[in-house]
């Protein structure tokens, strides 16, 4: 039987965070980029909760709850931005969202 120590939780959170970064870098679908961002927030929450359990203090869980509240607020603003961008461009490809790009560079 494999001994589950707290490093296992940390290792799982690090792997999930890297999967989120890989998703943000490699995909072009705006929804999948959003889900990768949420994945990174979730992995940070896992680290916070496991450290809170390890040190026997409630602070980590409270910070994790605040991260969840911020993630909910972020979800609302992000999705409404996607809705208004989709009305403008009729696309969910991030390469089409280049209204602020200066012409002539790249």
């Amino acid at each position, binding site marked *: 039987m494999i001994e589950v120590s707290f490093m296992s939780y940390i290792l799982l959170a690090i792997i999930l965070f890297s999967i989120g970064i890989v998703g943000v870098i490699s995909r072009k679908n705006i*929804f999948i980029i959003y889900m990768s961002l949420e994945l990174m927030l979730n992995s940070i929450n*896992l680290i916070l909760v496991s450290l809170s359990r390890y040190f026997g203090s409630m602070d980590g869980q409270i910070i994790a*709850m605040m991260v969840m509240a911020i993630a909910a607020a972020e979800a609302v603003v992000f999705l409404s931005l996607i809705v208004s961008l989709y009305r403008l461009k009729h696309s969910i490809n991030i390469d089409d969202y280049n209204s602020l790009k200066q012409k002539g560079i790249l």
Partner: protein
Amino acid sequence: MDIIFLVLALLALFGATSTIMFSNTVHSALGFVVTVLALAGLYALLNATFLFMVQIIVYAGAIIALLLFVIMFLNIQQSHAPKEPNKYLLMLVSAIAIVPFDYLLFKAFYSMSFAGDANITTKDFGNIKMLGNELFKNWILPFEAISLLLLVALIGAVVLARKKERA
């Protein structure tokens, strides 16, 4: 205990990889649900019973439901999805590029040396009474700031997503 952790960790990893692998957006969202629920199980394993509930209600209940609602509201078909010819190559390159950062994080946490068992906690550690006590005694200012932030997000979402009137 160990076997539950392994199953939940494998489920979380499976859901996360399927989130970034699938080309269909709805399938990715369903993969993300698996990850979120597995993480909720891990919170329960770590004695965070209230966060277990919050994770299921807020993430699986609200955020992903909102995401799926927006996907269906915009009527995203498979043909709308962007063409990504070298998706797997980019994934491979970025996964290799991320390895030094992972190694740094792992070393940093490893040097904290989580030797032996965790601190012994009382039976009500992580339940709603203890969390509420801590929240309203020591964290009252951040709590109020979060409520203000949620109000701002609510107004911002209404302003951003409404139809512009052509005057």
